[in-house]
C-alpha cells in the first residue's frame, strides 16, 4: 500500500509513530488522528456495520464522524471512540468496532479530576469567530475563557488553508492564543469539549489533557456571565443509494485531510453538491493531486466564478454537471467506491421518475456536500429557540433565553470575513454587558488578493441571516455574490433501501418512510421508532436530515416540524472523567471521632453509620464476632464497659422560648424539666410516626442540649430549623449544632460508679447525690467534663462529655483504670435490645407510632399540641391490628433469626397467599439470657404474647421455625440494675 501523503506538507514534519490497526502494523505522524493515519496508509474499510454487515469507511474529519468507531486496546482499553478524534500516539493498538465496545478488564490507572471555573465571558470554539470574540473580550480586561475541542486553535482555518491578516490562518490563530496568554485574566482550554449548557450559564466541559498530565481528563464546571457560542457548522450529507460505502465522504472532510493533515483520501473524486463550498474543496483537492472526475451539482445554475477556470492554475479533470445528482455507487472488490452513477435531475418528487440520462464515472472517492448545519446544540441546550432559514436550508439560533449569543458559522455566517467581524463584535458586546467596555480594535482582515480570487470563504458567501432575537446583528464586510444553496436532502428513487440517513444506526430513508407510513408524525417519535440520531454522535449528521425526510414524506415544512431535542453531552464523555477523584477513599467522606486512632490501634472492626466509622466490636486474638460480642456484653452486665458515643447528634437550644419550642417538637413535656435534669424524648413527623429519639438536658432556664441519633443529627437540626423558621418565627430560640465540639464516652455496668469515682474524685457519685436522669459538671481525669447519668443498657451508666480535643485523653484515662472493657455498636445493640429499647431506623421504618413501640407513656396527654399529635386521633393509628414491637424467642435457643425474616401464624405453610404478620427487626445472641432472641414488628403483637408463631427460613417445602411471642423487655424487666 503506497503512502497517500502530500509531498512536502508541513504536517509530515512530525515524528513517525508506529501503530497497529486490526492486526496490521502501520506508521503515522505526530499530529495525525487515527483516521488521518489510516487514510494515509490507504485503509478505506475501517470496520463493518453492526446489523447489515456493510463495509464502513471514514466519513468525516472530526466529532461528527458517524462511521469510523474503534476499540482502543493499548495503551489502555477504551470502547467506542471515533477514529477521527483519536490522537495518534506511538504504540497505539486499535481495532475497528462493530457493534458494542468492550470495557477494560482491569482498573484504569489514569487519574481524572475536575475544576470549577468562573468567567465574565466564555467563548466556545476557537475558530475565526471564536478567536475574534475571545480576543475582543479579553482586551477589555474581563475574565475570559476560550474553550476549543481541538489540539490547536483555528477551527476550520487549517482545513481550508485560508489566510488572515496576511498570514496562514493557523499561524494567525496561534498569534491570537499568544496574545491571550499575555492577558492574566484570560484562560485558553484546548482539547476541551464543552458538552453541556445548563441554566444560569452553567456549562460543563471535558478537557483531554493527555497521558503525561497530572490528570488524563479534567471536567470543567464553568459558570459564565455571558457566553459566546462559536461552535461552527457541520457539513450535511445527502441521502442517495449507496451513500454509506467507504469512499463516500463529506467534501469538507476530504479538504481537511488534504490541507490539515496532508493526507489524500483517494485518487480520483466525484464531487456531489448542492451549494458552493464543495467547489472550494474540489479546487484544494485538485491542487493537492486528487483528480476531480466530475462536479455533480444538483442546482441548474452554476455561477461563473465557481467554474473551474475561475481557480487560476487548477483545472478539474472532468466536467461540472449542473442539474445532476448521484443515483448510485458501484463498489469495488473491497466494498469501497469504484464508480459513481449520475443522472440528470428534474422535479422534486419522491419517485425516480424525474431522473434521466444516467452515466457512470470511475472514481474511488465520492465527496458530498448537502450544505451546512450550524452547530446549534449548545444554544438549544441553553433553552434558546431554533428557527429554520429557508435561504440557507438550515436551523439557526433564534431567540435566546440566557445571556448567550451564537456567532459566525454557528448562526449561519459562512464567510471568513463575516465570521471575524461577527466574533469581534460579539466578544466586545459580551464583555461590555459583563461590565467591561472593550476598546475599539481593528477587525482582522482577509487579504484582498484572495478576495479577488474568490478564496475568502471556508464555505460559500451567503448573505447572513437576520437574527430575530435582541442580539444586534453584526455589520458584515462586503462579500462576493454567491449562488444560493439548494436544500437537497435526498435523491429521489424507487427503492430507498440503501439511502442511509443514520449511518451508525443503519437507518435508511425506507425506514423513516415506514415510520411515517405507520402514522408517526413527530420527529421525536420517528427517532425512537427508527433509532435515527441515537448513536454515539447523537445525530450530528443525521438529525436534521431525518427531520427533512419526515417533512418530505408527510408533506409539511421542515421549519414547522422542527428537530429532536438537543441534549447533553454534545460529545461522548467517559464515566471515568465524570467520576474524577470521587472514587476509592475519596468517594465519600469518612467521618471519624476524636477517639478513632485508639480504636484503630486496638483492632476495632468498624461499622458504617452514615458517613461515620463507628467501632463495631473489638475482637481479641482468636475471637469471631459472636464470641467478641458475647464477651463485651458480659463485661458490661457484670463489670464495666465503655463505648465511644461521640457520634450522637447534639443541638444546643437557647432562648427564652426554648422549653416551649421543645414541647412542640417532642411528644413529651420538656419545659418542666429542671436545670440539672435529663429527660428521654421522642419526636414524630406530622404523620405521627416516630422520627427520632434522644435525651434532652436542661443546662439553664433558657438553654437545653438535645441529643439525636447518629444518623439523624443533620435531619433533626433541619427539622427543627424548618419549624422554627417557617411555622414559629415568633419563638425566641436559636439552634447551634455542637455534635463535634463534644466527645462522649458511655461508661456502663455495675462497676461504672466506682470507675467514675476513681476518675472524678471531686464528684459525689452516690445514687442520692447523682440520681438517674441528671447531669453534673465535674472534673474527670483532670478534664472539664459534663457527666450525665443515663443508660441505654439498663445498667448503671454514665455518659461523660469533654471537648473533642480532650476525648482521647479521657478515653485513655478510662481504659487506664484497667477495669473497663471497650465495646462497640454491636454490643450496644444487644444490650439495648435485651431491654426492649428500640433503635430508630432499625426497629422503626417511618410507619411506626410511639404506641406501636409500646411507648404510650412518652406521648403527653397534657400538652395542647405537638407535631404529630393530631395524627394519633386518626382511626388508623389506633387499629388493634397495627404492628407492635414485641420480643421473639425461637424454640431453638441456638437459632438466631435473620433480621428481615417474615413472620406467619401457621405451619406448615399453606398454599400462597400466606398472610405475613410482620418481620424481625433485630436479632442477637444474648450472654445474659444464655440464648438467642429477637425484636419484631408483629400485627397485634401485644395481644399475641405467649402465642407461637412461625418464621419461614429454609427453602420451599421446609417447615417454618417456631418462635414464641414475648414482651419486648427480656432482661431485668423490673429495672433493678439501673442504680447499680
Amino acid at each position, binding site marked *: 500500500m503506497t503512502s497517500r501523503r502530500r509531498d512536502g506538507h508541513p504536517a509530515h514534519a512530525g515524528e513517525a509513530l508506529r501503530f497497529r490497526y486490526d492486526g496490521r502494523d502501520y506508521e503515522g505522524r505526530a499530529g495525525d488522528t487515527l483516521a488521518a493515519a489510516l487514510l494515509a496508509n490507504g485503509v478505506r474499510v475501517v470496520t463493518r456495520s453492526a446489523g447489515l454487515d456493510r463495509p464502513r469507511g471514514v466519513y468525516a474529519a472530526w466529532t461528527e464522524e458517524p462511521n469510523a468507531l474503534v476499540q482502543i486496546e493499548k495503551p489502555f482499553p477504551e470502547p467506542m471512540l471515533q477514529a477521527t478524534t483519536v490522537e495518534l500516539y506511538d504504540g497505539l493498538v486499535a481495532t475497528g468496532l462493530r457493534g458494542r465496545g468492550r470495557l477494560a478488564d482491569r482498573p484504569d490507572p489514569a487519574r481524572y*479530576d*475536575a*475544576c*470549577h*471555573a*468562573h468567567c465574565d465571558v466564555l467563548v466556545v470554539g476557537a475558530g475565526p469567530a471564536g478567536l475574534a470574540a475571545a480576543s475582543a473580550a479579553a482586551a477589555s480586561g474581563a*475574565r475570559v475563557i476560550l474553550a476549543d475541542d481541538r489540539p490547536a486553535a483555528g477551527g476550520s482555518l487549517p482545513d481550508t488553508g485560508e489566510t488572515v491578516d496576511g498570514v496562514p490562518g493557523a499561524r494567525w490563530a496561534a498569534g491570537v492564543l499568544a496574545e491571550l496568554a499575555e492577558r492574566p485574566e484570560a484562560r485558553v482550554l484546548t482539547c476541551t469539549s464543552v458538552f453541556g449548557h445548563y441554566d444560569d450559564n452553567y456549562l460543563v466541559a471535558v478537557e483531554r489533557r493527555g497521558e503525561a498530565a*497530572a*490528570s488524563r481528563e479534567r471536567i470543567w*464546571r464553568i*459558570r459564565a456571565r455571558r457566553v459566546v457560542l462559536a461552535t461552527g457548522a457541520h457539513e450535511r450529507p445527502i441521502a442517495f443509494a449507496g451513500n454509506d460505502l467507504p469512499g463516500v465522504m463529506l467534501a469538507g472532510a476530504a479538504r481537511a485531510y488534504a490541507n490539515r493533515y496532508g493526507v489524500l483520501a483517494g485518487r480520483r473524486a466525484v464531487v456531489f453538491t448542492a451549494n458552493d463550498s464543495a467547489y472550494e474543496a474540489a479546487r484544494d483537492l485538485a491542487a493537492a493531486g486528487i483528480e476531480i472526475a466530475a462536479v455533480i451539482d444538483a442546482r441548474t445554475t452554476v455561477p461563473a466564478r465557481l467554474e473551474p477556470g475561475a481557480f487560476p492554475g487548477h483545472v478539474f479533470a472532468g466536467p461540472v454537471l449542473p442539474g445532476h445528482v448521484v443515483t448510485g455507487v458501484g463498489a469495488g472488490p473491497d466494498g469501497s467506491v469504484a464508480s459513481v452513477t449520475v443522472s440528470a435531475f428534474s422535479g422534486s418528487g419522491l419517485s425516480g421518475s424525474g431522473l434521466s440520462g444516467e452515466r457512470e464515472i470511475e472514481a474511488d472517492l465520492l465527496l458530498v456536500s448537502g450544505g451546512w448545519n450550524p452547530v446549534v446544540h449548545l444554544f438549544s441546550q441553553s433553552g434558546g429557540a431554533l428557527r429554520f432559514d429557508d435561504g440557507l436550508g438550515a436551523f439557526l439560533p433564534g431567540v435566546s433565553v440566557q445571556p448567550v449569543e451564537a456567532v459566525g458559522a454557528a448562526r449561519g455566517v459562512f464567510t471568513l470575513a463575516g465570521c471575524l467581524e461577527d466574533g469581534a463584535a460579539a466578544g466586545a458586546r459580551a464583555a461590555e454587558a459583563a461590565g467591561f467596555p472593550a476598546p475599539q480594535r481593528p477587525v482582522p482582515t482577509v487579504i484582498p488578493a484572495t478576495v479577488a480570487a474568490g478564496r475568502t470563504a471556508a464555505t460559500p458567501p451567503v448573505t447572513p441571516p437576520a437574527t430575530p432575537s435582541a442580539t444586534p446583528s453584526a455589520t458584515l464586510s462586503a462579500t462576493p455574490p454567491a449562488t444560493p444553496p439548494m436544500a437537497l436532502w435526498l435523491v429521489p428513487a424507487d427503492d430507498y433501501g440503501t439511502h442511509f440517513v443514520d449511518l451508525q444506526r443503519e437507518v435508511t430513508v425506507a425506514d423513516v418512510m415506514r415510520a411515517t407510513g405507520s402514522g408517526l408524525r413527530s420527529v421525536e417519535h420517528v427517532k425512537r421508532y427508527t433509532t435515527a440520531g441515537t448513536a454515539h454522535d447523537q445525530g450530528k449528521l443525521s438529525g436534521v436530515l431525518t427531520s427533512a425526510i419526515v417533512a418530505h414524506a408527510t408533506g409539511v415544512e421542515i421549519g414547522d416540524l422542527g428537530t429532536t431535542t438537543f441534549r447533553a453531552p454534545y460529545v461522548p464523555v467517559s464515566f471515568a472523567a465524570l467520576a474524577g*477523584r*470521587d472514587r476509592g*477513599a*475519596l468517594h*465519600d*467522606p*469518612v*467521618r*471519624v*471521632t*476524636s477517639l*478513632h*486512632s485508639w480504636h484503630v490501634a486496638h483492632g476495632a472492626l468498624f461499622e458504617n453509620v452514615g458517613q*461515620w466509622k463507628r467501632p463495631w466490636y473489638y475482637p481479641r486474638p482468636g475471637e469471631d464476632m459472636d464470641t467478641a460480642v458475647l464477651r463485651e456484653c458480659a463485661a458490661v452486665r457484670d463489670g464495666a464497659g465503655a463505648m465511644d458515643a461521640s*457520634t450522637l447528634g447534639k443541638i*444546643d437550644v*437557647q*432562648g*427564652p422560648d426554648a422549653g416551649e419550642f421543645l414541647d412542640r417538637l417532642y411528644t413529651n413535656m420538656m419545659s418542666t424539666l429542671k436545670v440539672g435534669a435529663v429527660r428521654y424524648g421522642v419526636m414524630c413527623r406530622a404523620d405521627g410516626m416516630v422520627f427520632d429519639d434522644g435525651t434532652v438536658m436542661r443546662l439553664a432556664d433558657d438553654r437545653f442540649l438535645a441529643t439525636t441519633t447518629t444518623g439523624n443529627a443533620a435531619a433533626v437540626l433541619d427539622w427543627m430549623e424548618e419549624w422554627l423558621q417557617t411555622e414559629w418565627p415568633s419563638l*425566641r430560640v*436559636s439552634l*447551634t*449544632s*455542637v*455534635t*463535634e*465540639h*463534644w466527645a462522649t464516652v458511655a461508661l456502663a455496668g455495675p462497676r461504672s460508679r466506682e470507675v467514675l469515682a476513681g476518675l472524678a474524685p471531686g464528684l459525689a457519685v452516690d445514687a442520692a447525690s447523682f440520681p438517674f436522669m441528671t447531669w453534673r459538671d465535674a472534673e474527670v*481525669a*483532670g*478534664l472539664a467534663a459534663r457527666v450525665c447519668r443515663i443508660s441505654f443498657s439498663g445498667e448503671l451508666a454514665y455518659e461523660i462529655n469533654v*471537648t*473533642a*480535643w*480532650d*476525648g*482521647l*485523653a479521657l478515653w*485513655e*484515662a478510662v481504659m487506664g483504670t484497667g477495669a473497663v472493657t471497650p465495646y462497640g455498636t454491636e454490643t450496644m445493640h444487644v444490650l439495648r435490645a435485651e431491654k426492649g429499647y428500640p433503635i430508630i431506623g432499625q426497629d422503626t421504618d417511618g410507619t411506626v407510632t410511639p404506641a406501636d413501640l409500646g411507648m404510650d407513656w412518652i406521648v403527653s396527654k397534657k400538652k395542647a399540641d405537638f407535631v404529630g399529635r393530631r395524627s394519633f386521633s386518626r382511626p388508623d393509628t389506633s387499629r388493634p391490628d397495627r404492628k407492635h414491637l414485641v420480643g421473639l424467642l425461637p424454640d431453638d435457643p441456638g437459632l438466631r433469626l435473620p433480621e428481615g425474616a417474615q413472620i406467619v401464624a401457621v405451619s406448615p405453610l399453606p398454599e400462597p397467599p400466606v398472610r405475613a404478620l410482620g418481620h424481625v427487626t433485630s436479632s442477637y445472641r444474648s450472654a445474659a439470657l444464655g440464648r438467642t432472641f429477637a425484636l419484631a414488628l408483629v400485627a397485634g403483637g401485644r395481644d399475641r404474647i405467649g402465642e407461637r408463631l412461625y418464621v419461614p427460613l429454609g427453602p420451599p417445602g421446609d417447615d417454618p421455625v417456631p418462635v414464641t411471642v414475648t414482651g419486648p423487655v427480656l432482661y431485668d424487666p423490673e429495672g433493678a440494675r439501673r442504680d447499680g
Partner: protein
Amino acid sequence: MAERVSPLAGFEPVSAEGLRIAEVPFLTQVNLRADPESPAAAALGDALGVPLPAEPGTWARGDADVLWLGPDEWLVVGPPGGAAELESRLRKAAGEARVGVTDVSAQRTTVLVGGSRSRDLLAHGCALDLHPRMFGPGRCAQTSLARAQVVLAAREGGEFAVLVRSSFAAYLWAWLLDAAAEYL
C-alpha cells in the same frame, strides 16, 4: 493534665513553592446569634472591638475575627484558650437581651491554604468564585469543599482559612493533599 489532640494532629503540613497547607489547631470559636438590628448587636460589636459584619459573606477583625454566617449568626474566632472569657464577655455585653452564645471551639478545626496556587487548589472542589474581584480579603462563606461543609474565609495575600468540622478534617486533608499533587 493530659495533652489535647487536634483533629489533624499527626498530619504533616505542606509547604511548597506555590502552596502551603497547615492546620491551625485549638482556636477559640464561639457561635453568636443575635438580632442585628438590636442594641445588643451594637453592644456585642463594642465588646469585640469591631461591629458585627452586616454585609452577607464578609468578616471583620477586631479583638477577634467575626465571620458573618447568616442574617443573625456570626462565628467569633480568636486565639486558643479564650473560649470561656469570650463567652462570658459576650453574655455580659448582651445583658438581658436575647442572644445565643455557644462555645463551638472543638466543633471545627482550621486549615490555612496559602500560596500562589491556593485558588487553583480550592477550585478543584469549591464551586464558589474565589477570584480576588469576587472573594477578596474580608469575604467569607459557608460552602462545600469537595464533599465537606466548610466555612471559607479569604485573608490577605491569597490565603484562605478553611474551617472544617472535626469529623471531616481527616477526609478533607486527604482530599487536599490528593488535589495538591500537581502543584507540589
